[in-house]
C-alpha cells in the first residue's frame, strides 16, 4: 500500500454531492481537496453521439456495471437474498457526475411536516400507529433547510411556478407546498400536448395543477457561480442520458467548470474507494485502488463520504464504523431505515397522437391534492400520500412500442399484435405517482454473507418489502388516476398494482433509494447528526440520500443538494473554527 502525501480533505465519490462539497470548500477556504471517483471523466461533448435508446436507455450504458458490483435483495430476514443480476428497480450511476448525469432533473422540495414526520404522526395518530413503523424526525426543520433549498434551486436553475410565496397561496403553483422565500429562478417550460389535456382534466375536477419543477432549463440561465447553460430543446434524450447541450443540470456542466479553475482541487478518476481508515474515533483517510490497480492510502484531516446512497452505508460497514443495525432488537444504527418510494402508474390510451418522442425529464403537470398530509384525510389508513403527474419525458421508439389496451390481443407477437401496436402507437400517456415511503423496522441494509464484488468484498444486502400501508397509498392514488383518465376522455389500463404486492427488483421504479446512514437528533437512532457529521467520528461526514430517515414523495435530488450545502456551511463556518461535534 502506497502512502500518499496527506491532504486536508478527501472525498469518496465524484457525483452531485462530492463535487458540490468540493466546490464550496475550495471556494471558501484554501484547504486542499481530493475527490476519488471510481468511474471515468465525462463532459458535455461526450453526449453528442449518445442519443441512442438501445445503448443508453435499455442497456444502461451510463450506469454502474453490475458485473463488477451490485446489491442483493430478500423480502424478509426469513428468506435468503439473491443478487440483482440485471437492471433493475433502481439505477446507480458511475463516472464523474454519478447518477446526476443521467437523472431526470425533477426538483421537488419535501413538505415542511415531512422533516418532523415522527412528531407529526404521533400527534395525529398516537394509538393507531403500527409498531413496525420506524419513522423519525430529521433533526432539521423546513425553516432550517429553506435557504439551502433556494441555494440549490439557483445552482441547478430550477424552472417552475411558486404556489406558496412566504405563506401567500398562488393559483397555478403547488398550493400545498411549504412557503418559499423566492419565486423559482426560471419560469415553467412550454407544454407538449398530453400534459395540457391532463391539466384541463384535473382543473375541471377541482384539483390544483402546477408545472412540475425541473432543472432542465426553460431558457438560457447563468447561476450564482457564473456558470451559463443553454435552454432545453426538448430532444427527448434526457433521463438515462447525458445532456448534449448542457440544458439539464449535471455535475459535469455546473460543478466541473468551476472546479477546473480551482488550484486546491484534485479529481482522481478510476479510483475505487475501499475503506475509511480510522483509529480511536478519528478518521485518518481513505484507502483505494487506483486506475492501475495499485493500493493507495490517502491520509486527510477531514473525510467526506459522498457516494451513491447504498454505497455510503456499505463503505461504513466495510470499514467497521458504527454499530450495525439489528432489526430483532432495534439496536444499532448503520443500515437502518432503508426506504425506496411508492411508485404507481396508469396507462391512458388517447384518441389522438401525442408526439411523445418530444420532451424533457420533468416536462409536465402535477397535482398534490393527495400528497403529503393532504393524503392523510383522503383515505382511511393512509398516513402520507403522493403526487400525481403526467409528463412528456421523451419516449423512445423501442420502449414505447407495443403498448396496447389489455385484452385487445391474445399474444404479444405476430400479425394481430403488430396491427394493434401500430394502431395505438404514440397514443399512450402515463399518469404516474410517487408517494412517501415510511421507514419500517424490518427494512434495512447489511452486508451480504455470500455474494461479493469484483474485489471480493461483500455486496450490500437489501431486506425490503412493501406493507399494507404502501398498498393502501397505491390504491388511493390510482383511484384518482382512473378518475383523471376518464376526465381526459382516455381509456385507462388497470394500474400495475402487482408491483406493490411484493418488492420487485426487475421493474424500474426510481433510483430514489434512501436511508441506511440516517441523520437524526440521537446517536442511538442515527448515524449522523443534523449536519451529516458522524456522531462518533467528528472529522467524518456521510452525505447524501443515505441520510434520509424516510423518503418524501418528491424526487430526492434537490433535498440531497440542500442538505449537502448545509453540510458545507456546517463544516466551513463551524467545524473548521472549532473542530469537534457540532451537535
Amino acid at each position, binding site marked *: 500500500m502506497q502512502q500518499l502525501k496527506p491532504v486536508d480533505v478527501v472525498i469518496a465519490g465524484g457525483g452531485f454531492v462530492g463535487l458540490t462539497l468540493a466546490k464550496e470548500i475550495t471556494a471558501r477556504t484554501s484547504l486542499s481537496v481530493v475527490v476519488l471517483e471510481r468511474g471515468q471523466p465525462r463532459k458535455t461533448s461526450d453526449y453528442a*453521439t449518445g*442519443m*441512442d*435508446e*438501445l*445503448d443508453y436507455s*435499455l*442497456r*444502461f*450504458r451510463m450506469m454502474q*456495471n*453490475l*458485473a463488477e458490483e*451490485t446489491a442483493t*435483495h430478500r*423480502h424478509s430476514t426469513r428468506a435468503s437474498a*439473491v*443478487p*440483482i*443480476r*440485471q437492471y433493475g428497480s433502481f439505477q446507480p450511476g458511475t463516472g464523474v457526475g454519478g447518477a446526476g448525469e443521467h437523472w431526470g432533473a425533477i426538483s421537488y422540495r419535501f413538505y415542511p411536516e415531512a422533516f418532523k414526520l415522527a412528531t407529526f404522526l404521533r400527534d395525529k395518530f398516537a394509538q393507531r400507529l403500527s409498531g413496525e413503523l420506524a419513522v423519525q424526525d430529521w433533526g432539521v426543520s423546513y425553516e432550517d433547510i429553506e435557504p439551502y433549498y433556494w441555494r440549490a434551486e439557483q445552482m441547478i436553475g430550477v424552472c417552475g411556478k411558486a404556489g406558496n410565496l412566504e405563506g401567500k397561496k398562488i393559483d397555478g403553483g403547488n398550493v400545498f407546498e411549504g412557503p418559499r422565500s423566492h419565486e423559482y429562478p426560471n419560469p415553467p417550460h*412550454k*407544454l*407538449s*400536448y398530453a400534459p*395540457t389535456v391532463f391539466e384541463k382534466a384535473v382543473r375541471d375536477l377541482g384539483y390544483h395543477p402546477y408545472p412540475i419543477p425541473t432543472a432542465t432549463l426553460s431558457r438560457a440561465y447563468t447561476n450564482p457561480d457564473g456558470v451559463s447553460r443553454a*435552454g*432545453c*430543446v*426538448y*430532444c*427527448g434524450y434526457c433521463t438515462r442520458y447525458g445532456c*448534449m447541450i448542457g440544458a439539464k443540470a449535471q455535475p459535469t456542466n455546473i460543478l466541473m467548470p468551476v472546479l477546473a479553475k480551482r488550484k486546491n482541487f484534485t479529481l482522481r478518476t478510476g479510483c475505487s474507494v475501499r475503506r475509511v481508515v480510522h483509529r480511536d474515533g478519528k478518521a485518518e483517510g481513505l484507502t483505494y485502488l487506483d486506475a492501475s490497480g495499485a493500493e493507495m492510502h490517502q491520509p486527510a484531516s477531514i473525510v467526506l463520504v459522498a457516494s451513491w446512497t447504498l454505497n455510503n452505508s456499505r463503505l461504513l460497514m466495510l470499514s467497521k464504523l458504527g454499530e450495525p443495525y439489528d432489526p430483532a432488537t432495534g439496536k444499532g444504527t448503520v443500515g437502518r431505515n432503508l426506504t425506496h418510494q411508492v411508485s404507481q402508474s396508469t396507462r391512458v390510451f388517447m384518441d*389522438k*397522437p401525442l*408526439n411523445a*418522442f*418530444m*420532451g424533457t425529464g420533468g*416536462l409536465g403537470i402535477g397535482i398534490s391534492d393527495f400528497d403529503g398530509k393532504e393524503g392523510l384525510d383522503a383515505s382511511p389508513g393512509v398516513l402520507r400520500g403522493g403526487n400525481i403527474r403526467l409528463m*412528456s419525458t421523451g419516449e423512445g*421508439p*423501442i420502449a414505447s*412500442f*407495443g403498448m396496447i389496451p389489455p385484452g385487445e390481443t391474445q*399474444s404479444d*407477437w*405476430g*400479425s394481430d399484435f*403488430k396491427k394493434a401496436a*401500430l394502431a395505438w*402507437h*404514440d397514443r399512450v400517456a402515463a399518469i404516474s405517482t410517487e408517494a412517501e415511503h415510511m421507514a419500517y423496522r424490518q427494512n434495512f441494509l447489511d452486508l451480504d454473507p455470500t*455474494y*461479493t464484488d469484483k474485489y471480493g468484498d461483500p455486496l450490500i444486502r437489501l431486506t425490503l418489502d412493501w406493507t399494507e400501508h404502501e398498498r393502501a397509498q397505491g390504491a388511493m392514488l390510482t383511484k384518482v388516476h382512473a378518475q383523471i383518465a376518464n376526465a381526459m376522455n382516455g381509456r385507462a389500463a388497470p394500474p400495475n398494482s402487482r408491483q406493490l404486492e*411484493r*418488492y*420487485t*427488483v*426487475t421493474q424500474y421504479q426510481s433510483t430514489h433509494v434512501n436511508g441506511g446512514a440516517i441523520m437524526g437528533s440521537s446517536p442511538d437512532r442515527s448515524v449522523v447528526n443534523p449536519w451529516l457529521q458522524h456522531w462518533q467520528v467528528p472529522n467524518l461526514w456521510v452525505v447524501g440520500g443515505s441520510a434520509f430517515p424516510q423518503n418524501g414523495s418528491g424526487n430526492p435530488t434537490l433535498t440531497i443538494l440542500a442538505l449537502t450545502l448545509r453540510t458545507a456551511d456546517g463544516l466551513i463556518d463551524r467545524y473548521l473554527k472549532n473542530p469537534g461535534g457540532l451537535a
Partner: protein
Amino acid sequence: MKTPRMKRREFLTLPVESIGGVLLYTLAGEPVRLAGQDRGQDKGQTKSGEIRVPLRFFTAAEARVVQAACERIFPKDANGPGATEAAVVIYIDHQLAGPYGSDKYRYTKPPFVESVPEHGYQGKQTPREIYREGVKKLANFTDLPAEQQDQRLRAIETSMFFRLLRQHTIEGMFSDPMHGGNAGLIGWQLIGYPGPLMSYRDEIDKAHGQPWRRKPVSLAQVTGRPVSGWEDEKG
C-alpha cells in the same frame, strides 16, 4: 468467453429487395418508398442483386432459423414490412457477438440459486448460450409453413429463449441502424418516429393532437459523423 467458431467467417445472403425497396404508409398516411439507405459499412453487395452480410456470431444456418422466427414475431403483412426487411437477424447477431451477448454487464458470480419471480433471471447461461441452445431446438424450422412455425413458437412462448427473441425483434425493428437492424429506417417509418433530432424547441407546444411526422434520419445522419454501438466496443 471463447467461441472458436466466431473466427470462421460466415455470411447470410439476402436478396436486395428484401431489405428496403417496399412501399409503406406512415402513421400520417403518406406513402413512402424506401431505398436501401443506411446500410452498415461491412455489408457488401454482390453483382447478382444479393447482399452477403458477414455474420459475427451465428452460423449461416442459425441465422436463417432466427430470421424465420423473427419474421413470425414481426411479420410482413398488410400493415407493413417485417423483421426480415429490417434485417433484425443482423441486429441480433451483432448484439450476441458483443459484450451484451457474453454478459459483460450482468452480475454472473455464483452461486446461481433459483429464486422468486420478483428477482428476475438468476441463471448462469449467457444470451449467446441461450440462443445456441434455443436455435438447436428449432430444427427444420425454416422448412415449415408459417402456421406450423407459429405453433412451434407458441410451444416455447414462455421460455427464456423466446422472451429474448421477442424482445430483440422489437429492438432490431426500432433501434438506430448503427446496431444492424431497422434497415433503411424501415421501423421508424412504420411508427412515424423521426429519429434522434436535435431539437423540438419550436414544435413542442405546436401540433397539439396532430401527428408531427418527418422522413426519419439516423444518428449518423443527424450528427454528421460516424457512430458505433456499444457492441462494437473493443475488449
